[in-house]
C-alpha cells in the first residue's frame, strides 16, 4: 500500500515537473529557440539510441568476448574513463578555438588529456595488481558488454 502511494506520488510529481518544464519552454524560451532545442533533444536521443548503445553492443560482441575475463573490467572502466576525458577535451579544444576572452583558457587541453589519461591508466593498473593479489581468476559470465 505504502509502495503504491509512493509510486503514485512520484508519478504525479514527475508529471507536474514535465508539464511545468514544457510550460517554461513555451513561455520563457524564445520561439526562435524552440527549433534549436528540439534539434538538440532529437540529437541527444539519436546519440543514445543510434550511436552509444549500438557501439556498446558492437564493442561487447566483437572486442570484449575476445578479452580474457579478468581483463574485461579494467577495459570497461578504461574505455569509460577515456570517453569522459575525450568528451571534456573535445569541448575544451573547441572552446579554445572559439574563445574571444583571453583569460578564459589557461590549461592546454591536449597535455591535460595525456596527464589525466595517464593517471587513469596508472590507477587501473595499480587496482588490478592489488585485486589480482587478493583473488583467484574467475569467470564473470557472458561478455556482451
Amino acid at each position, binding site marked *: 500500500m505504502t509502495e503504491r502511494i509512493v509510486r503514485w506520488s512520484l508519478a504525479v510529481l514527475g508529471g507536474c515537473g514535465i508539464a511545468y*518544464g514544457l510550460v517554461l519552454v513555451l513561455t520563457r524560451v524564445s520561439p526562435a529557440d524552440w527549433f534549436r532545442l528540439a534539434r538538440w533533444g532529437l540529437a541527444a536521443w539519436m546519440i543514445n539510441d543510434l550511436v552509444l548503445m549500438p557501439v556498446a553492443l558492437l564493442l561487447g560482441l566483437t572486442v570484449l568476448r575476445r578479452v580474457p575475463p579478468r581483463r574485461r573490467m579494467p577495459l570497461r572502466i578504461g574505455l569509460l574513463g577515456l570517453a569522459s576525458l575525450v568528451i571534456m577535451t573535445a569541448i575544451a579544444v573547441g572552446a579554445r578555438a572559439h574563445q574571444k576572452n583571453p583569460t578564459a583558457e589557461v590549461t592546454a587541453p591536449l597535455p591535460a588529456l595525456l596527464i589525466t589519461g595517464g593517471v587513469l591508466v596508472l590507477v587501473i593498473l595499480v587496482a588490478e595488481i592489488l585485486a589480482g593479489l587478493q583473488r583467484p581468476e574467475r569467470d564473470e559470465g557472458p561478455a556482451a558488454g
Partner: protein
Amino acid sequence: MVRWPLRSIRRRIPTPAAVTGAVQSPAVVTRLGLFLGPAFGICFLTGLISHNAQSPTGVLLRPWPVWGYRLTQGIHVATGIACLPLLLAKIFAAYPRILDRPDGPARRPSVIIRFAADRLLIGILTAAGIVQVATGLFNIFQWYVFKFDFVPVHYAVAWVAMGAILIHVATKLPTIIETLRRRRPTEQRRSPDARRGFIGGVLGVAGGLTIFSIGQTVGPLDGLALLSPRRPRSVNLQGVPINRTAAQAGVVDRIDSWSLTVTGPGGEHTLHRDALAAMPQTTVRLPIACVEGWSVSAEWSGVRIKDLVDLVGGAGRDLRVQSMERGSRYARTRLPADFVADPRSILAIRINGDVLAPDHGYPARIIAPDRPGALQTKWVERLEVL
C-alpha cells in the same frame, strides 16, 4: 502480393538476454541510479538557487553567508561534471533494453500502448539528461555552440529531466526495491566482483573528473585543475578571471567620458571618478563566484553602496544598477534592500590594491556578498533607488 519478412527480421534481432554481459543487470543499473538520480537532484536544487538568485524577484540568496553562492554553484558545476561518466555508465549498463519488445501478446493495444509509453519516457529521460549535461559542459567552457539562450532552456529542460526521473523511479520502483532487498549468498550471484568493480570504477572516474576540475572553486586543488575551464588562482589579470571583457561589452570608447548618476527620492547626484575616490573608502575581502562554477576571493576597495544611497535618500529600498554595457541580460540588475544596507556591499574602484582594469569594470563595479558573478555589475553608470 509482397510479404514483408517481419517475422524473420524479428527473429534475427537478438533479445536483451542474449547481449547481456556481467554489468548489464538490474543490480548495476539500480545502483548506478542511486548515484545518478541524487546527482541530478543536487544539480536541480542548486540550479534552482542560482536561477532564483538571478531573478529580479529572487529571495533565496541573502548577504550571509558570503560564500553561499560560491558553495552552491561550485557544487552545481562539480556535480554536473561528475554526471558525465555516471550517465555514460548508466547508458552502457542499460543498453540491452534497446532491444526490448512488448511484454505479452504484441497485438493487444494495451500492451503496445504501455510499451510505447515506456519507450517515450525513456526517450525523454535520456534526451533531457544528455542535453542538460552536454549544454552545461559547453556553457562552463563558454562555447555557445547550441546557439539558443542557455539560461531559460537549461532551466526549463531541468524541470523536464527531473520530472522524467521521478516518473522513471515510480515505474521501476518494484524492481529497485527487489534489487536492493535481494541478499543472495555471494556464490549464487552472477559475477558480483565484476558488478562491484564496475560501480567502483565508475565512481572512481567520476571522482577523478571532480578532482581534476574542482580546483576552479577549491583553492588548494588549483594545481590539479587540468580539466577545468578556469584556473582562478593562476595567470589572470589582477588575480581574478574575466568572463566578459570591456571590448566584448562594447564599452571601451565610452570609459573616458564616464560619470556615475545616483537618483532617489532626494534628487539626483552625478559623480566623476575623482569625486568617488574622495569619498570614504571601504576595503572588503569577498569572493566573486561565477555561474560557470569558478570562484576566487579578492580584496576590493570602494565606496559603500549605502553611503551612495544616503546622498539621495531612500534607505531600506531596492536599487537598480545600470551598466554602460547595452543589450546584455545583465546590463541592468536589481540590488535588494538588504544587500544595499550591508556594509560589505560596495561600488569598487580598486581590486587587490590596483585600480580596476577596464576588463574588471573600470571605472566602477558592484561587489556585494553572496551574489552570482553575473550580478556583480561592471562599468556601473547609474544607481537608481526604487
